[in-house]
């Protein structure tokens, strides 16, 4: 399981680094929020997997929708003059740490 995660992540990183393609500076901020949301989804998925509550549909839809929604909200916030991306950063940050905590506890229990 962990091998699968690390291996695919590594391959993704390599593909991304080889891509001759940059985000315009204007949208780099939204991309960073999207990355954060994606990270959150993945950790949530791993946690679900370890808790035996993993659902394919929930996981994939959560990944796609969260990512797009986070970037979209940040964009909307900029249009409205409200720093909505801060909300996304806080929410996803907190959730990532929570999920990491749960995963760590599971691992400790297991080994």
């Amino acid at each position, binding site marked *: *399981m962990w091998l*699968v*995660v690390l*291996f*695919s*992540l*590594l*391959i*993704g*990183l*390599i*593909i*991304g*680094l080889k*891509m001759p*393609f*940059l*985000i315009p*500076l204007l949208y*780099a901020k939204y*991309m*960073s929020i*999207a*990355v954060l949301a*994606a*990270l959150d*989804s*993945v950790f949530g*998925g*791993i946690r679900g*997997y370890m808790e*035996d*509550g*993993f*659902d*394919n549909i929930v*996981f*994939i839809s959560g*990944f796609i929708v969260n990512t797009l929604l986070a970037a979209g909200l940040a964009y909307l916030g900029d249009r409205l003059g409200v720093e909505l991306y801060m909300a996304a950063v806080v929410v996803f940050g907190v959730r990532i740490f929570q999920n990491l905590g749960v995963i760590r506890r599971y691992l400790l229990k297991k080994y």
Partner: protein
Amino acid sequence: MRTRGAQATIAVVCLVLGIMIAIQFKTTTTYNEQYPQERVEVLAEKLKSVTSERDAMAEEVLSLRSQLNNVRENNQATADLQDELQRNSLFAGLLPVKGAGVIITVNDIPRNMQNGDNPNSFIVHDQDLLFLVNELKASGAEAISINGERITAMSEIRCAGTMILVNTNRIAPPFVMKAVGNPDMLVSGMELQGGWLGTMRLLGYPIHVQKSSKIEMDAYNGKIKFTYVTPVEHTEKAER
């Protein structure tokens, strides 16, 4: 539910995540490298060289002007012409002058900015100075300077970003406007009801008006260059 399918899904999503992270990483490092450091340094270097160039040219102007003065002094035969020249130089602001007049000091409104305050309403603008200079002229000023920059017929007062340019030199608050002329006339002309000085005072700008019996002013020290204009030749002397 720990199926092969779940693992495959996680693998695919991790792949996408990896690509996103890599692209974002690359973007961030590239822009950080490209803009803040390199550009700022290049521009600072350019500014430095241009500034030193300008200083050198200003020195050249001064030396040329002193040469011109020598020529004028040596030539006593043309006293009339010299008088005329002096009058015109005074008019053009090319001679340092002194005399009675008024000193007006204008500064930005000293107030701590609150969130949501518009900084524009606290600073002295180029238009303010322009209006004040105009009113000084209308009140009979014979020579005007702002922060040592002599106002000539072709002087601009214009904002460039956060600064105000006069004779293409930057000036900053507090703005000390000196005007040579009849002090009483100048003061009453500036303090006319509804005048710009009163308006600015009403808006809260610290303004200080002081009559002075001896004001000294430098000459205009920029370049004088005519590229397009040539005088029309007179066959008859213009009537006065």
